């Protein structure tokens, strides 16, 4: 059985956005029988990464079922638009990072699930240059 092909892209050349900019993205699904598709979820969200547990916050969310499409086919290209919020800004810190992305999740019959992501940057917070870290154990030694 062939794997479905998920295409997701940000419309336009840039990957760095300012607060309040309009983000337009498109997605399309190929190489799968439309009858196999149970649902498609598209979300624009931020998530953390680093030395702590991953947290996330959803800014835009859309779930579509076959009944929502004109002919029950969720595969054709779909365009999403949203205005980006004023926080949290993208951040690359010493022990945690905040990253924005568009995420597409495809649900097929028999519990199969496929995910694809496209990252982008919100704002222009400079990255934190990590200083030389002296751990407590080093100091005791």
């Amino acid at each position: 059985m062939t794997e479905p092909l998920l295409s997701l892209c940000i419309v336009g050349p840039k990957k760095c956005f300012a607060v309040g900019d309009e983000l337009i993205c498109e997605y399309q699904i190929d190489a799968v029988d439309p009858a196999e598709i149970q649902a498609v979820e598209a979300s624009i969200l931020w998530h953390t990464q680093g030395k702590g547990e991953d947290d996330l916050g959803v800014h835009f969310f859309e779930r579509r079922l076959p009944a929502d499409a004109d002919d029950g086919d969720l595969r054709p290209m779909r365009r999403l638009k949203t205005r980006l919020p004023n926080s949290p800004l993208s951040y690359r810190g010493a022990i945690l990072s905040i990253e924005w992305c568009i995420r597409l999740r495809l649900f097929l019959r028999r519990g199969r699930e496929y995910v694809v992501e496209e990252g982008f940057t919100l704002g222009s917070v400079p990255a934190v240059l990590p200083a030389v870290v002296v751990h407590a154990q080093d100091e005791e030694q």
Partner: protein
Amino acid sequence: MASNPFSTRFIRPGAIPFLFAGDDSAASRIERLQENGWWGQIIGHHGSGKSTLLAALKPELEAAGRQIVEIALHQGQRRMPPLNRRSLMATTQLVIDGYEQLSWWSRWQVKLLCRWCGAGLLVSSHADVGLPTICRTEASEQIARAIVAQLLGDGEAIITSSDVAAAYEATGGNVRETLFRLYDVYQQKAMQPAAR
């Protein structure tokens, strides 16, 4: 810039496969568990891979027809969370990560409940808690190196062997802390060229 490969999403139990030694495998451990009536314990120090091994055994348990009820206890959690007793039956495998946190009374209650229902009990603990030992996890620098190699993949030479050795020694053989320490090392090395 790419993600730091030592972020928690990449090193949490289940994200890294457990490295079995020699001919050992998840299937052989499940066999041993079955021989002991589906009761057993995994013993090991902090950061030696107990939770990772439990995650590795879960698919084999499901393949063996066991219905897993999983409980992860955190520091200071002396009592069991409420259990739906109707969900425990002969095919149930109660998996408790951090069993040593429980008070003696809670442990007695858990054992009694599992015996009463005929359910299996698989626990992880820092010390012997009186169940048949399925596996003893031990950390080693070799295992730490193998995990780092898996995390870095091909072509990533940012972390060297001496970095791994230094981190392992500094953390007293705790593999999880070694990986956290290497997070900082990777961050420094990866960021410095960008700053220049």
